[in-house]
């Protein structure tokens, strides 16, 4: 084995990837070649530094939850009625228990998820699953808002966040908290956000962030209206979205 061959094999030798015969040949040459000895030392040093010093990025704990939820959704039999698969998911996935209350004022009973949060997530999942995201598909708030007239006994504020990267893509009539509610759909890359809006009628929502089975849910009450946003979007972007909605829907003082 000549010098060039050995030079070529040094990395594989140090990585323990050579078979025994080749190892012996490399070692025989290196023993008598000062240049190769030096290269070997340098390379050894380099490999050790790479392995010990290079930062390794760690996945956020949310990612695993998100992936499991996505897998569970993908494995739900498409033929089953949606409410059955959702009911099965509640039980099987332990959705009702897997809760993290991150931003907390307090709610009555530690770890209890208001039913409306579960309903909102179920609505979001169902809308994506049965491919019925929108009744009215439009990126124009002046088309979406009038569409609700006559279907609801109130008029939801419809804002478009397209300039901020969260375009409005449509609206849908949905049922939440035992009543018809407006659902606005926003998009962020491949992800969708459902924003439910309905009159609070004295039942205000605590301002809480729930992490439900990989979905983020945030509810709040403002100007006599309840708002609840649901998405599988990452927490940071989800909070940004909610903040922008809150700013733009804030009631103007009388």
């Amino acid at each position: 084995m000549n010098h060039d061959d050995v030079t070529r094999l040094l990395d594989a030798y140090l990585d323990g990837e050579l078979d025994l015969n080749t190892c012996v040949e490399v070692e025989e040459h290196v023993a008598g070649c000062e240049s190769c000895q030096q290269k070997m030392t340098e390379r050894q040093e380099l490999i050790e530094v790479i392995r010990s010093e290079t930062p390794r990025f760690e996945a956020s704990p949310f990612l695993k939850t998100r992936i499991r939820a996505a897998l569970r959704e993908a494995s739900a039999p498409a033929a089953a009625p949606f409410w059955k698969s959702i009911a099965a998911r509640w039980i099987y996935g332990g959705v009702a228990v897997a809760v993290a209350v991150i931003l907390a004022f307090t709610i009555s009973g530690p770890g209890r998820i208001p039913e409306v949060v579960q309903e909102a997530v179920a609505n979001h999942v169902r809308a994506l699953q049965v491919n019925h995201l929108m009744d009215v598909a439009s990126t124009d708030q002046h088309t979406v808002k009038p569409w609700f007239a006559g279907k609801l006994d109130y008029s939801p504020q419809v804002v478009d966040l397209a300039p901020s990267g969260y375009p409005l893509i449509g609206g849908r009539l949905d049922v939440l908290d035992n009543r018809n509610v407006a659902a606005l759909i926003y998009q962020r890359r491949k992800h969708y956000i459902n924003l439910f809006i309905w009159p609070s009628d004295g039942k205000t929502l605590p301002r809480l962030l729930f992490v439900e089975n990989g979905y983020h849910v945030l509810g709040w009450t403002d100007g006599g209206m309840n708002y609840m946003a649901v998405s599988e979007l990452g927490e940071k972007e989800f909070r940004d979205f909610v903040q922008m909605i809150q700013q733009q829907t804030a009631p103007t003082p009388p």
Partner: protein
Amino acid sequence: MKSGIHYGTTSRWEGNLSQPEFEQVFLPHLDAAYNLARWLLRNDQDAEDAVQEAYLRAYKAFSRFRGGDGKAWFMTILRNVCYTTLKKSRSHETPEPFDEEIHQAAGQSDVREAFRQKANAESLHQALEKLPDEFREIIVLHDLEGLAYKEVAAVLGIPIGTVMSRLARARGRLRAEIVATNVRPSSP
């Protein structure tokens, strides 16, 4: 290539997996997958999206998977997802040219000294970020994630001999970048 690289054994399983079994087999690769995606895509959100997409694809494609190295199989899918994302976002970006003069200016013992002084987590990070994708990914797969040459070959779809030569070149280039780091005033 005729010189012998030995072929190690890898874990195998057979048959179909249920969803919980799939999770049990593949979720342990989550950290490795995220690390590769993050190094290739350079931001958290894209890396998370790519990893999730890879899991969904793997899950759907699993019935077509017939045993073999599960980690390599999964990392192959992930890498494809990452490159699809890169293609979409990168048409306007040109890689920084490699400055041969700077990188070869100093004599050998100077270089060795400079390397020893400069090799730390920060310079490693900077240097690795500067490498072309094909060099960066091979270092991440082998040196950071510990994939054997044979597994790396499977993920990248190249012969083992090419893994050996490309890894050697990638490390050489990384070393040169470390030596060149901070030679110029530190970049913002």
